[in-house]
């Protein structure tokens, strides 16, 4: 065979080719030689000299295909008239034709590649749409498919589709269906257009099959829904609907083109769920309240895909969460309100979080609902005049964890509990209130060395920092470092003492030097006090040492906070007692005598009368000192020894006059060899008053914060509308507390008075005065 163009008799070549085509298209056997010869015939016709015949070849082939398809069509019609099944017949012919036309396409490879592809329109021309696709010349395979569409599918479509729809209906009822036939027929609708690249080119499939199919599906499931509703209650209905949905989705996966899958489930959801929302919604509340997980999960699955439908469930869930949250923290009583408050809340939170994870697949909307419920519950005020206690209770809870107790606790456990308490912390609006309380309690723990471990303290501060930022914890950090610095300082002090040959009187001497501004200590509470001589020198030495180390600093001792450990040797047995410095000073006075008058003690210690009598009362309570009038008998001693652990001291129960004589109880006995004498509250600050004080100091801080925020904003903006300004201030404060609008207004007023701002001529506007 030669590739050189030669003269060709078109009719003769075409006739040869045609007879082969008749076998190819019916998938009859064609031997290799014949195939090769026809292949080169196509080539020769296309390049023939002097006249090539590609046009003629194309036209003749087209006619051949059309005739073939028309013949097949009439054959099918004939057989159907004789009672054969249209679907099966069509499917069989299609299978043969589909493969036959593929082979034909291969045989025409030369024509396809050299002539037809070049005439094809490019993608850009198709996209801009000025080419009419009908005019286009197609490759032979494509040509075959397009004529199958025109002369076969379009003529049979009504009957085919009707049969398909019946088959689907059967399938839904669970009757056996010829799967491959249904699949194949639907596939043929897609395939005859699949060579067109664009999605919208699936027009045929869409028009003749998908649209009526969806319509039929809609009708079917609409009927199905009413049938199910009549038969079952809500939870059963949901079960059934989910089953139906699943099987319909499976069915569409099996038979339909991928673009239809989502449409089918949409139709089903609309008919069975969206149209019956009222029915489903009506059941939501009951299910939420009874927390029937299975029903809720089903409800979630049904409502989730249809957008707004879920909102009702979300709000029911939020209502429910809020209710059980409030239940968990209302009517708390007992010693440890803080503990039950936090643990109850955390328990509720954990349960609801579990519920959301298991039942609602951790859906964002439900997590949002939980957030809203939590922040409502945690910031809930029973009475609008009373500040919310959550911040305080949480701080107390942390305090109870971090404070040393007789019980040994696992550090890891504490850390875990602290970590969880941050969950609640995040919901608290009044973070600044928490900060105040926390700082106070931290100060107490640090000064009295009551922290369970410094590591736990530090990790809690870091957790707060993470949650609320550097500024929020800077004071807490400062307190922490002061304690560390003090330890170093004490080391250098004892070295300095050695160098200067200054003894410390055998006392383990230790001082915390704190920076005045960083600690929430009430300094006005200290009373005049003269140090016992034994310590006075050491204190002076320390002051000298400190002034040499740091310049320009004034050191003030806070003796009401200082404590000591004392060995009691005057009784029969010796005891080790820890107590505040004031007690120690009183007891030291009895060194050379067993009896002193109130006045004498006051002269020596310089304590105020009020403070002294409280301390003395405590010592009398403890039976360390006795009054002349109180007769000692051993039974009362033993009974009152429980006072050593004592709840709150009840001072002022003894009538102490300046002349009252106090005796050292040389017969003092205690069950324990180590005990502690409780400090006296200097100003009779009850917890209630302490809370009030803290809240009012928080209020002061808030005013300053808001004023600073207003000035910052106005300095940047120069002029601003009232509402806008208030919004920005609230935004800035959000991380610390939720300011009330009247409060912001007051701050603006105050700044106008201080001439930071002025009102401009336009309404509701302020400007900054530089």
């Amino acid at each position, binding site marked *: 065979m030669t590739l050189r163009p030669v003269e060709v008799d078109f009719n003769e070549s075409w006739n040869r080719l045609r007879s082969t085509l008749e076998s190819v298209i019916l998938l009859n056997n064609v031997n290799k030689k014949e195939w090769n010869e026809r292949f080169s015939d196509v080539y020769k016709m296309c390049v023939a000299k002097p006249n090539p015949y590609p046009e003629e070849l194309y036209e003749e082939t087209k006619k051949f295909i059309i005739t073939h398809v028309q013949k097949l069509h009439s054959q099918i019609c004939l057989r159907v008239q004789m009672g054969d099944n249209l679907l099966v017949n069509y499917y069989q012919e299609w299978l043969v034709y589909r493969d036959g036309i593929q082979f034909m396409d291969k045989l025409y490879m030369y024509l396809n590649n050299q002539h037809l592809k070049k005439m094809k329109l490019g993608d850009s021309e198709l996209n801009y749409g000025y080419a009419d696709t009908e005019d286009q010349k197609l490759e032979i395979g494509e040509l075959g498919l397009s004529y199958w569409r025109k002369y076969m599918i379009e003529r049979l479509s009504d009957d085919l589709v009707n049969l398909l729809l019946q088959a689907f209906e059967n399938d839904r009822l669970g009757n056996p269906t010829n799967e491959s036939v249904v699949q194949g027929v639907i596939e043929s609708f897609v395939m005859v257009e699949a060579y067109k690249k664009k999605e919208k080119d699936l027009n045929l499939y869409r028009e003749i099959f998908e649209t009526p199919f969806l319509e039929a599906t809609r009708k079917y499931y609409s009927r199905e829904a009413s049938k199910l509703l009549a038969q079952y209650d809500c939870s059963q209905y949901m079960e059934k609907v989910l089953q139906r949905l699943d099987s319909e989705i499976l069915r569409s996966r099996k038979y339909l083109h991928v673009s239809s899958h989502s449409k089918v489930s949409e139709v089903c959801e609309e008919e069975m769920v969206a149209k019956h929302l009222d029915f489903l919604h009506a059941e939501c509340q009951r299910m939420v309240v009874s927390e029937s997980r299975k029903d809720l999960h089903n409800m979630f699955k049904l409502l989730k895909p249809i957008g707004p439908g879920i909102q009702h469930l979300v709000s029911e869930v939020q209502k429910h969460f809020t209710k059980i949250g409030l239940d968990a923290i209302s009517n708390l009583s007992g010693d440890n309100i803080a503990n039950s408050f936090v643990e109850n809340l955390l328990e509720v939170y954990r349960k609801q979080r579990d519920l959301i994870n298991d039942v609602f697949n951790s859906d964002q909307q439900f997590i949002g609902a939980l957030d809203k419920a939590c922040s409502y519950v945690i910031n809930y005020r029973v009475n609008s005049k009373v500040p919310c206690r959550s911040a305080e209770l949480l701080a107390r809870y942390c305090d109870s964890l971090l404070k040393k107790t007789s019980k040994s606790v696992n550090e890891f456990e504490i850390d875990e509990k602290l970590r969880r308490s941050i969950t609640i912390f995040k919901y608290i609006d009044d973070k600044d209130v928490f900060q105040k309380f926390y700082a106070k309690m931290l100060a107490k723990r640090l000064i009295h060395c009551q922290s369970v471990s410094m590591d736990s303290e530090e990790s809690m501060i870091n957790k707060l920092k993470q949650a609320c930022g550097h500024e929020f914890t*800077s004071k807490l950090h400062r307190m922490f470092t002061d304690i560390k610095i003090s330890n170093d300082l004490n080391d250098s002090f004892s070295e300095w003492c050695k160098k200067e040959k200054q003894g410390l009187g055998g006392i383990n001497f230790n001082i915390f030097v704190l920076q005045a*501004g960083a600690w929430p200590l009430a300094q006005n509470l200290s009373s005049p006090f003269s140090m016992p001589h034994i310590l006075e020198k050491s204190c002076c030495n320390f002051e000298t040492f400190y002034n040499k180390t740091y310049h320009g600093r004034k*050191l003030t001792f806070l003796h009401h906070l200082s404590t000591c450990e004392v060995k009691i040797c005057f009784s029969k047995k010796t005891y080790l007692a820890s107590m505040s410095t004031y007690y120690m000073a009183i007891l030291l006075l009895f060194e050379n005598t067993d009896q002193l008058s109130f006045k004498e003690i006051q002269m020596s210690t310089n304590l105020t009368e009020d403070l002294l009598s409280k301390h003395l009362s405590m010592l009398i309570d403890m039976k360390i000192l006795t009054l002349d009038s109180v007769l000692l008998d051993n039974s009362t001693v033993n009974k009152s020894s429980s006072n050593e652990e004592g709840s709150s001291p009840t001072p002022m129960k003894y009538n102490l006059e300046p002349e009252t004589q106090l005796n050292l109880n040389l017969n003092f006995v205690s069950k324990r060899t180590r005990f502690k004498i409780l400090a006296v509250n200097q100003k009779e600050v009850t917890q209630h008053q302490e809370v009030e004080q803290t809240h009012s100091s928080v209020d002061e801080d808030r005013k300053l914060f808001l004023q600073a925020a207003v000035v910052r904003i106005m300095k940047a903006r120069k002029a601003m509308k009232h509402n806008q300004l208030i919004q920005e201030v609230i935004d800035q404060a959000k991380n610390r507390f939720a300011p009330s609008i009247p409060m912001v207004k007051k701050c603006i007023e105050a700044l106008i008075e201080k001439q930071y701002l002025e009102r401009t001529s336009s309404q509701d506007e302020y400007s900054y005065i530089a």
Partner: protein
Amino acid sequence: MKVNIKSWRGVAVWKWIAKDDNCGICRNAFDGCCTDCKMPGDECPLVWGQCSHCFHIHCIMKWLNSPQVVQLCPICRQDWKFKE
């Protein structure tokens, strides 16, 4: 000895000793810090000049480093010398 002190732990607070309440340069309180610092205390100490005026160390250093022929106390215009 009837009572014997084993150990004593004192608590004391410190403040700057300064004649004024505010720094003459940044006008912030001495108990606070200069405008560049976040926390008062050791990180933002005070210094005294021989003229007895005192400032945040950061503030006076900024002043002394600014271009000028002789280094003067910004308040009394005497030669600035750090007090030992």
